[in-house]
Structure formats: C-alpha cells, structure tokens
C-alpha cells in the first residue's frame, strides 16, 4: 500500500467480525466497521475531507480560515487537513467535554473558542443563542472563513453514501447487511451509509443510537438534540434507541478487552446498542427455526486513547492501580495521634535554637508569595512521590513540616516517623496559625 498523500489513506477501513462467543447472538453475524483506523483516527476523516477538499485551493489563495462548530473528531480531522494545506483552523464549540481532545487540537495548531455557559439570570431580551449567532456570522461573512458546516452540509452524508456504505456491501460479498447500527451525532454517517445500503436492499433496517437524556456519550446527541441537526431526518431510522454513558463504557470494555478493537465509548455505545437491539431479533430467528442467518454491521467511530479522563471520571475503578508504599492514605489514626505537633511559639523557639529544615508543602505560587524565612518548598504532590522511594533527607535531620492548616503536614510527619525519622514535627494550625499569631513571613 503506497500513497502519495496521507489523505489518500482515508476510507477503505476494515470490516471485522465479532466472535459469537463474545456477543452471544447465535443466528446473526455481527461486524464492526473500524472507522477508528482512518488516518486521523475517526469516522469524521471522511466527512472532513469531503467537505473541505473542493474549497482548499480557493481558501489558500484568499487566506481563509477553516471554521467548524465541533467538539472533537471533526475538528481534529479538519485541523490536520487545514494544517497540511497551510490554512489556519478555528473550532467554536460549547460541547468540548473531553480534555485530551482539547489538548490534541491545540497541539495540532487549532484555535478553540468555547461558548459561555448558560446565564444564571434569564435575559428575556436575548433572543438568539450563541450558536445561532455564530452560525449567522459565519454564513454572512464569506470573505474570511471557509465554514465546513458539518450539521447542514450534504457533503458530510455523501462521504458515507459514496464510501462507507458501498465498502460495507463490497466486504459482505456484494450484499447489504440486514441491520445497520450507528450512533447519531451529526447524523452524517448514519444518513449517508443508510442511503447507500437502502439503495442496494430496501429491506435493510437502520438503528440510530442516541445518548440517554442528561447523560454524556462523546459524539452522540440526545433524543432532543438530534432535532437541532439539519442532516437529521427521523425517516432514516427504523428505530431510535438511547444508550447511557455506563452502557457505552461497558460496550467499550468488551471491544477493547475481548475483541482487541481499541475503540472509544462511542464505538462501545454502538456495540452495546447493536447487541441489545439484536438479541430479540436473534430470538425470532431461533423461533423461526428455518436455519436463516442475519448479518449486522455497526460503526466503531474512534479510538479509546483520548477518553481516559472520561473513564476515570465515570468508572475510576477500571483504572485502579496497586497501592504504593508509604502513601498518605495508609496512615492510621494511631500514627497520626503520635505525631509531634508544635504550636507557633514552640516552633519559632525550635527554629531559632536548632535550625531544623522547614519544609513548606504548599503550591509554589503560594510559597513564592509568602513563606517562613529559610523554609524550602516541596509541593505536597511531589513530596508524596518522593516518599514512595524513601525519606528525601537524613533520618537524624530535624524537620518541621508546614501546610495551610496543619493536616497534611501531620499526615506526612506520621509517614516519616514510620519510616524511622527521628525528629519530625508538624506545625499545628499551619501557615494560617502562623500568620494569625503575627509571626513574620517573607517574600524573598
């Protein structure tokens, strides 16, 4: 496979069979269309390329900026395409909820504008929402922007009508599947692919998956939000079903752990929704008992790597790590009770007499502003890291630990004592008590 340009690698993605022992359907063959293997990592590469390609030359000549309302994959693909064609890219969004994608977009050179949150006090004079306003700004100003307009641009759906759909038919040996399952975001992939599949076989059934209301599955809209999309037409779908974030993660786990398909939560939602929908159809085929088999295809739209914080937030137990030694969480109440906490006056006397090492555990910004003279700053996060390996100073070196209110310092003092440190003390009441007692602090 040799290509002249990375965009030539868009499309022709593999169709991979899911093992029956994984999905448990006995009369239906289930296939995953791996859109995650597009060069920029998602199903959106097709639409982005299709929407942008005809206008790139003109845009470059006139120095236009590529603009899209996108929270993720479309922005990612457009940022790359714009970048390699020497054009700036700007994304305007109010839905950027996945921090890794935000960082990736910045890395790709995109400019991101996030829309403000909803006003707490209703302003009855505000007749237009920000999205509508920006939309109008973009369509009226045709001099500076190349607006790809994914929610209304027919090229979005056409990319799938001429690519994704026919590829599925080709890989199934010239037949359309009995069921096609796709998550609905811009509705581009489901609308376009469904059009091609229906043209080939009008009996195909199309299942659209939406997010459970009030739940967030990346790239999917909920049952109300789909109506805001120009490409969405309820007639496309034989069924519209909702998938929760939890179910999407369950489906994703099956794909990544049991199928070796490293898809993200949206692909997980598609898998989960597909199996759930097909279970009943599978039972019908079993009851018919005529040996007939069905075929179903779902779309895995992007990769898992960008969704670690999404998983951490919703299912932290999936990312659990073995406990590390000398962790603050292991300090017992008894160890804590044995810590030598010293008040401000005692601490000042001790510092004057014996010059202990004073370790301030606060953040560097706060330390920089004001601290006890002669103290050193080891931020608590870093201190915790250091302790996993052992005490960061000699066991006989007298140490006074200082934090804002004397809680964290007591915990770390207990840990150091457990590790055999001979004279570690904690400043009772912390820097706040120090300040309130009128003891001097410096900014040096």
């Amino acid at each position, binding site marked *: 496979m040799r290509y002249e340009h990375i965009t030539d690698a868009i499309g022709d993605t593999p169709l991979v069979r899911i093992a029956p022992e994984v999905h448990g359907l006995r009369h239906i063959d289930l296939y995953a269309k791996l859109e995650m293997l597009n060069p920029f990592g998602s199903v959106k590469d097709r639409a982005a390329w299709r929407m942008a390609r005809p206008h790139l030359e003109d845009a470059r000549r006139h120095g236009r900026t590529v603009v899209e309302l996108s929270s993720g994959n479309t922005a990612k693909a457009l940022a790359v395409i714009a970048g390699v064609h020497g054009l700036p890219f700007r994304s*305007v969004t109010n839905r*950027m909820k996945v921090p890794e994608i*935000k*960082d990736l977009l*910045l890395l790709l050179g995109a*400019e*991101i*504008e*996030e*829309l*403000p*949150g*909803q*006003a*707490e*006090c*209703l302003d*009855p004079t*505000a*007749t*237009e*929402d*920000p*999205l*509508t306003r920006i939309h109008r700004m973009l369509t009226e100003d045709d001099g500076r922007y190349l607006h790809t307009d994914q929610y209304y641009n027919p090229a979005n759906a056409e990319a799938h009508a001429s690519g994704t759909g026919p590829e599925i038919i080709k890989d199934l040996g010239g037949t359309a599947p009995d069921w096609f399952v796709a998550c609905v975001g811009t509705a581009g992939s489901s609308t376009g692919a469904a059009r091609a599949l229906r043209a080939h076989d009008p009996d195909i059934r199309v299942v659209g998956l939406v997010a459970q*209301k*009030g739940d967030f599955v990346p790239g999917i809209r909920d*049952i*109300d939000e789909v*109506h*805001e*999309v*120009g490409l*969405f*037409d*309820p007639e496309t779908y034989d069924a519209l079903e909702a998938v929760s974030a939890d179910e999407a993660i369950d489906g994703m786990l099956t794909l990544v752990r049991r199928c070796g398909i490293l898809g993200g939560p949206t692909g997980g939602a598609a898998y989960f929704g597909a199996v759930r929908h097909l279970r009943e159809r599978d039972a019908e085929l079993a009851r018919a008992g005529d040996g007939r088999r069905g075929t179903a295809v779902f779309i895995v739209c992007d990769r898992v790597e960008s969704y670690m914080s999404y998983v951490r937030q919703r299912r932290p137990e999936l990312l659990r790590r073995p406990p590390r030694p000398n962790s603050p969480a292991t300090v017992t109440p008894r160890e804590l009770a044995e810590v030598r906490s010293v008040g401000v006056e005692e601490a000042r006397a001790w510092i004057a007499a014996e010059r202990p090492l004073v370790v301030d555990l*606060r*953040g560097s*910004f*706060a*330390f*920089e*502003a*004001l601290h006890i003279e002669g103290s050193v700053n080891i931020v608590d996060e870093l201190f915790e890291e250091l302790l996993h390996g052992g005490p960061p100073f000699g066991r006989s070196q007298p140490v006074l630990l200082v934090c*804002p*209110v004397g*809680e964290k310092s007591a915990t770390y003092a207990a840990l150091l004592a457990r590790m055999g440190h001979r004279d570690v003390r904690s400043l009772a009441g912390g*820097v*706040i008590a120090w*300040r309130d007692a009128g003891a001097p602090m410096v*900014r040096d």
Partner: protein
Amino acid sequence: MSEPLYLAPRLEPRLASLLDSPAFLHPLVTALGSPLNLVLPDQIADNVRAFRAVYARHRLGGRVLYAHKANRSSALLRRLAATGPAAAVGVDVASLGELQHALGAGLTPDRIVATGPKDPDYLWLAARTGVTVAVDSPAELTSLARLVERFGLPRVPVLPRLSDFAAPGTRVLTRRSRFGTPAADAGPLLDLVEKHGDSVDLTGVSYHLDTMGLAEKAAALDGCLRVLDEARRRGLRPRCVDVGGGFGVDYLADGAQWERYTTELTRALLGRRPPLTWEGHGYGLRGENGTLRGTLSVYPAHRPVAGPRYLDELLAQTAPSLGRPLATLLLENLYDLHTEPGRALTDQCGLTLARVLEVRVTAAGERLVRLAANARDIGLEDHGLLLDPVLVPAAPRPEGNGGPPAGSGVAAGSGDAAGSGAGAGVGVYLLGNLCLESDLITRRLVHLAHEPRPGDLLAFANTAGYFMDFTADHALHQPIARKVAVHREGDTGPWSWCLDEQYWPHLTAGDDA
C-alpha cells in the same frame, strides 16, 4: 389525550409542612388578600449553615453574603443579622435603599458589601458607614477616594470587581458584562489603589459572572489570584476573594419529569404532538422544516448540582493556569472566600399564594383558571421557571388536599372535557388579573391533580428568590401582595405569623447568633 406532564416542585420538610396546613393558609389569605407572600426566616439560617459546611470541608474562612436583591423581605434580612458567627455571615447590597435596609436590620457595616451601579448618595452612605465597597471601575474608585478625602472619613475597605478573564489553552467566550474592570487592566487599577492609599484599603478582589459554567468561574478565580499576588508584590495586604454567586437552585422534585417535559415540548414544536403552551409558545425554540432552531431559554429547573454543591464543585476545580484545586490555592495563599448566593440562600424560604376566582372552558376545550394575582406578582415567566403550583383546596377533596408531591399527583380528576382525560388530572392555563392578553402566570399548560374551584388556593412554592416581589408593581391599581413571615416552635409546633415588617429575630431565632 396523552399523560399529564407534571413539573412538581421540590419541597423540603419545612415548606412541605406549611403547604400541608390549609387551615392555617386559608384564613391568612382571607385576612390579608390575594396574592399573599410567605417567607420562612428560619430556613435561610439553615441554608447559611449548608454553605458554611462547604467552607468547613475545604477548611476555608470568609463570609457567606446574602445578595439582598433576591427578595425585599425584612424578616429574611433580620434573621440573617441574627445568624452567626458574625464573621461568617453578611449581606451584599446593590442600592442605597438596600444599604439602608441592611443597616436598619441590624447588620453592622463590617458585614456589608456594597455592589452594583452606585450614585453619589449610595457611595457617600457606604463610605460614611464604612461598609466594604465592591468598586466597579477606576472612575468609581477615584470618586470614592475623593469622597473620603473631602469629608475626612476613615479608610474605606474596597474589593474591586474584575471581569474579562483570559484562560490559557482555549479561548472561553465569556458573555460580555457591563460590570467590573477587565483583569488585563488590573495594573493601572492597583496604581490607583496605591495612589489613594490613605483613603481606600484593598481587602481583596471580586468577580461575578452571569453563567452556570464552572470552567468560566474557575478561570475568573484563577485570574483573581494572580491579581492579588500582584497586589501583595506591591506591598498591599489583600485577604479575600469574593466569587459572587450564581450557584443556582434545584426547583423540581423529580428529574425524570423535567426530561420528559422538555422532550415533549420539542415534539410539540416540531408538530409531532398537540401544543403544550399557550398559542404554541416555544420558550426560545422553534421548528423549521422539521429541524429545531433556537435554544430553550428557560431556567434549568432540574439542577442536581446547585447551591452548596455547586460551590463545592467550583472549589474542587483545578485552576487553569495555577494548576492546583481552587480551594487549595485559596487556603495556601491565606485568602478568605466570600460568596454572594442570592437565589440559593433563599431556597425553600418562601411561597406565594393566589386565590382561584374563576374556572371556564373555551369553545376549543381549553380550561382557563383565573387567579387573583398576576405575572408580576409571581415572576415565573419573567425568569423562565417552569414549575407547577400546588393546589390548596378550600374544602377537602375525597383523596386529600390535592397537593401533589412528585409523581403522586395522578388522581381521579373531575375534568372530562378536552385537555383532561378521566383519571389523569386536568390541564389548565393560569390567567392573571390584569387586563392584558399577555398576563398569563405561566404560558405552559399546567396539569393539576384536581380541577380547581373558585375559593381554592394555588400555592407557588419556592418563590423567595426573585419570583416573589422582584417585578411586583401597582399595575392597573391591582394591590401588591402583602408579605408575612411564618415560623413555628421546633419542627412540629403550630405555625405562627406576623407581617414581614413586624418580624424580629427574638420571636424565633435559636441560639445560633
């Protein structure tokens, strides 16, 4: 006819118990007229405690300041004056009248912050009494300093209000505000503070953004910390950050009702079901060729993360440029936290009663209920709050009092015309008492468990924050609602009342002063 779409109010025990006391409520309306506003001063003290618990969890000091503009009540203000500790509870006033009211309610100047647009009278009284002034602009700072110099007043504590914060990484398009000094202009502002050092004492900085977005507020707090650091570098001694309010209230008992209602509203606007609103009003949404346009501009009545929980989440946010949790940064930098919850402090603190005057059915089968109150008395529409009233019948119905808590409102209704299915409650439009087509208490078709009868009361729960008297006036010579304070001994004693202006905390306040 499809099922009724209820939006039942969330009722905490004190308010629920009051609503369940028709024998107390009916004579009150008979004596004082309809509409009638009730406030529950003891509740606001409980709400302060809930915010204090968040402060305690993060080990933070500082004041919870009640934003007075949420309600004109004297009782609520006086109860706050009796709520302690004094170092932790105060009031944020936004006009000369509110400042006078707060001082007269027993709040000492150290517990008051003067915000909002200020005229010279307001500024003078603030300076004269020594309350903290949240200065809006360099010009206001200069005017204040001149006043102090001219009248030989003591140094006035100031808390400049900042706006237009830049966050690293992505550009957050914050809604423009007409208040505050852009954070980028903090340098010249601090120059002014230094120049007028004998007249003003910078005790901290403040912001208030009209948004529910946590990220925007986190960026603002982050920006404030940077400005405060600059102030310290110059030798000033700031001690606090005031993060304003906008923490919100969760108004509904059942989130599923809200989800269902908004979905059905969408369907109605796309023509897929009968209208849910008077003349097909869309609350900002409209259907165009099968696509939904616009944005639902209503208050998100179901808000699980609201009030103290919202503050908790804000404090747990990581500061975008400084990289540590905001609460940790405040603590480490030895700053107190001031908050100004208005609406959230009045959660469950009041209700508005209106008498049913007439029930009539139009030729089209719509059921219209006319109330002795108007949309200015009960500002639900003005502030976009979609919330059902609770029916307090004059005579008992067979099933009970008809006040439907979440999900329990489905009972055999007497209605049988279009708009009400047998056994599925009754759908009504609530008309006000003004001679104006626009005077609907809410433009929603409201479902009630029973058809109201003349003489019944409709109780609008949880109206103390902005819905009670923010817009009330004497239009068409209709009387403005009277306001009474209600209280009881313990959790079970009989309810007592007095006129709002007659309430003083010694009547009820416990030992929390």
